[in-house]
Structure formats: structure tokens, C-alpha cells
């Protein structure tokens, strides 16, 4: 036994140790991936990634909240006045500057994810009688962030405008929220 060990030169042993350890580490990392990935959204969760909404029932000036991927999405049928207000204020100084045209596909329909970009509360304003805040859009009851009629953050601690989900108009009265191809 000792005769055998004596024949092994040190550089060879070091090489073997380093290469074995490297391969072992790569193997361990590869084995860890299925575990990490298993807690990502599963196929059935991803499969319900689009939501279809019938717009014909939403009168001008009214709004509707729907769930898309478990998140609330606000669909607002804006009045001419609200559209004008949103467009007129494009040039005003804002926390997260963006024009109204960049935020809508059709000016009368505003579609935003109803999650305050501060800490995730649900802002009020899409139902009749809701408190809308000073800018006529949404008001977050948690920490007082205020959004305008284009869903842009205008005052309060939230850093970003209300997020726009991917959506498309299937026809004049049908809206698809989520992946267009789904």
C-alpha cells in the first residue's frame, strides 16, 4: 500500500483533486437546479396566463377590476374629460414621467395593474364613489400615493406609475389581458 502511494507524484495528485472537486461542484449545482426550478410557477399556473374581458358592459366613466394571474387589473372606460386631463398634463413635472399616449392603446380604455408600486396595496378609484385622490385617478389607502387619470404617480411615496399589463383588443368589445398568442 505504502509502495503504491509513494509512486504518485504530488502534481498529479493535486490535478486529480482539483479536477474531481470541480466536476463534483458542477454536478452538485446541476443537481440543485431541479429543486430550485420546482418552486417556480408550474405549467398549470402559466397556462392561465391570459384573461378575456367583455368590455360592452362598462359604460363611459366606469371601471372594472378583473383578476389576471391572480393580480387585480383595472380597466377604466375614461370620459373625454379624463382623457383630455391626462393628455394635457403630459408636460407637467412628474415622479415617473411618461406621456398618456405611451400608456394606452385606445385613448378611451386605460388598462393598468391595480397594485400600488410602493408596497403592493390596492389603490381605490375604479369603482363609483371610490376616493380618487387629488389627481382624479387612484388613491392608495396604505401610504397615500396618488395616481392621475392615466395611472401615473403624482404624489406620495410610490416610485413608479401603475404598471401596464400586456393586452390586446380581440375585437371592439373584447379585451385579452396577458400573452396575445395564448
Amino acid at each position, binding site marked *: 500500500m505504502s509502495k503504491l502511494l509513494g509512486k504518485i507524484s504530488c502534481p498529479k495528485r493535486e490535478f486529480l483533486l482539483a479536477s474531481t472537486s470541480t466536476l463534483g461542484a458542477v454536478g452538485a449545482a446541476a443537481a440543485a437546479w431541479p429543486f430550485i426550478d*420546482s418552486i*417556480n410557477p408550474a405549467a398549470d399556473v402559466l397556462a392561465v396566463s391570459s384573461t378575456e374581458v367583455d368590455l360592452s358592459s362598462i359604460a363611459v366613466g366606469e371601471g372594472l377590476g378583473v383578476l389576471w394571474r391572480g393580480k387585480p387589473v383595472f380597466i377604466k372606460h375614461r370620459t373625454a374629460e379624463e382623457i383630455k386631463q391626462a393628455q394635457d398634463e403630459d408636460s407637467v413635472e412628474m415622479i415617473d414621467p411618461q406621456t398618456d399616449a405611451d400608456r394606452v392603446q385606445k385613448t378611451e380604455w386605460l388598462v393598468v395593474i391595480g397594485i400600488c408600486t410602493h408596497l403592493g396595496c390596492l389603490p381605490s378609484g375604479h369603482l363609483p364613489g371610490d376616493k380618487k385622490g387629488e389627481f382624479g385617478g387612484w388613491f392608495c389607502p396604505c401610504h397615500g400615493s396618488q395616481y392621475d387619470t392615466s395611472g401615473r404617480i403624482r404624489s406620495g411615496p410610490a416610485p413608479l406609475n401603475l404598471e401596464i399589463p400586456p393586452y390586446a383588443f380581440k375585437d371592439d368589445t373584447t379585451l385579452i389581458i396577458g400573452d396575445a398568442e395564448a
Partner: protein
Amino acid sequence: MKKDNNTSRLMTWIDDRLPIFSYANKNVIDYPTPKNLNYWWNFGSIAGIILVIMIITGIFLAMNYQPHTDVAFQSVERIMRDVNYGWLLRYLHMNGASMFFIVIYIHMFRGMYFGSYKNPREILWIMGVAIYVTMMATAFMGYVLPWGQMSFWGATVITNLFTTIPLVGDYLVTWIWGGFTIDSPTINRFFVWHYLMPAIIVGIVIVHLWALHVTKSNNPLGIDIKSKKDTIPFHPYYTIKDLFGFGVFLIIFLYFVFFQPNFFAEADNYIPANPMVTPPHIVPEWYFLPFYAILRAIPDKLGGVIAMGGGVMILFILPWLDTSKVRSARYRPIFKVMFWVFVADVLFLGWLGIRPSEGIYLTWGRIATFYYFFHFLVLLPALGKYEKCYPVPDDISEEFLKDHCGDTDDTDGKEEKTNA
């Protein structure tokens, strides 16, 4: 080893307060291990690693499993079809259970062959049997969770064993079920126990290792370590050997996971549980079969349960049933033969466990059951008295030199009767 001065100072600082480095050095690096351990000594560490694999896969499976009769079956199918790599996690866990038992059985038979349970290792052995019994309970409850036909009826049969207990049996079973049959309350509590018991196993494993490190490992010669010459440090010699053995084990394990994932499974368990239909052929998981055969061999309800339980429990008192002072079967010519007869008997019982319980199988089952207990209760005590053993060598290192550097013929690794 050269070490950066600051690093070594930090290590000393920590070690003075919490001696993890000196503890690790004492128990896994310099730890003196008999230099003559053969590959049968790999199975303890393999079992330990499978336990870890089972716990990790189990934790991730539990993140997607639902313990309710309405959705349990579907939640397992969802794991198989929709959860990313869910199929892999489940097949690892499922086949891991079978592998765990194979490894544990080899580990136990190794202990029996080389007399590893004898003075001074009785508590070490008892802790091992306790791990085995806890594993059986854990495996049984895990098998109920997928809520297939075998889950349901297996659970029904096993829990009904408790009805044999006089007076309180029926109440006890209702209490275990949390209802009047196996239902959602049962599956929910089984899930909780199935998740909890591995932690208990880990606890017993720690005690098992603690006892091992007091008495040190037995070895193929079954004689005590006399001097430093009889040992080599655990690291690197046995860390490498254990890792190599684990690699070979992984090849076998993963062959089943990837190519024969349902080899150990029952097709009926892919049918959702139906309390109105009992499958024509109820069999437990393969690792329970020998004991199942004992249960069926006894033509009496209570007697069968007692014999089956006794078949497991008798392992606890094995250190006192085997009265021979010689540990290793190498120096016990009759025991050596009888050991293999016993192994054959257990395998035969396992084979009988999946046969129909009638005709010639019943007769064979009774003979094999009788022999199982005969081995423990008559043969082992008698052999200790009457068997004439070969002379046992004095020390490991001398015997080692004879085996590895002698001019005798090449019988390395074979059972060699020396000093005769």
C-alpha cells in the same frame, strides 16, 4: 498544512469558544478507523446520504402536495405533469425509499454477519433497529399520501392490525383514523407524521453515530482495535472510499429513477382511492413482504399480528440471543452457513409475501416463519454454546500484512480461514 496566519487565528478564536474545528477533526478527519474495512462497510454512509436526499426531495414535494382526499391524488399528478421537474423529485423520493430499504437491509445483514451488535456495541445496534422501525412507519405513511387504491387499502389493512388489541382495539383505530374510516383527517395527520418522523430519524442517527464513535467501528475480523497501527485516519481514506461507493450506488439508484421509475411501484396505485372497491390483489411495498408473509402464515388474527411485530422486535434483543463471544462469521464455520440460510429464509418469506395465501404457499410460509424464529431463538443461543470456532487473530495490523503483503496465493477479499 500551511495556513494564513489570520485565518488560523480566527479558527483558534472560534474553536476556543465553540470547538467545531477540533470536533470535526476528531470525528471525521483524524478519526481512527480500522484499516481493514471492506466494501460492506460503505452502506452506513450511503444510508445517511439517502436520508438527506429523502428529506430534501420530501421538502420540495411537500410544497406542492395537498393532504386532502378530494385533491391528494390530483396534486400528485400535478407534481408529475405540471410542476417543473416534479416528476424527477417524485421519482427520486419514491425510488429513494426502496433504495433506502435495500441499503439498510444490507447494512443490517452486514452487522449480523460480522457480529457488529455484540459487546460493546449493543446500544449502537439497538439505535439502528430503532431507526429501521421508524423508517418503516415513515414509509408506510408516505405510501398513503398519493391516495391511490394501494394507498387506501394498504392503510386500511395496516391500521386494522390495531383492532386485534383486546378491548381498546376498535377505539384505538377510530382514534388513529380520526373518523370511522380512512379519510381526510387520516391523510392530513399521516402527512404531518410523515414530514415529522424523518426529523426523529435524524435524531436517532445522531445517537447511533455517537455510540459508534465511542465503540469505534467493528471490522471484518471482529476483533478490537489494539493500537494505532490497526487504524487509518477516516479522512482521506474512508471519505474517498465512501464517496466512491456512493457513486456506484448513485448509478444504480438513478438507473431506476430515469429508466425504470415504476419498477418498485404497484400499477393499482395510479387508480384514485375508491372506498367501494378493493383491488383483487393487495400487496404491501416490497420491503414489508417478509413480515407480511409472517402475518399471513399464522391462522389467527391476534397471533399473526404478534408474530409479525415479534419478527421485527426480536432484532432489538439480538445482542443477547447470540451468545457466541466470537464476532465475525469468518471464524464461526457453522454460523457462517446458518447466516446464509437465514438470508435465504428472509428472501423466501419476501417471495411468499406476494404469492396467494393458499395451498402449498401457506405450508411453505409456515415453515419459513418457523425457521425465522428458530434462527433467533434456538440456533443463535445454541451455537454460542456448542459451535467450535476457528482461532481468532490477535491484531488487525498483523492480519492485514498477511493478507496484503504475504506470499500466499491471491485470496484478497475472500473469506480465508487463517491460523487454522
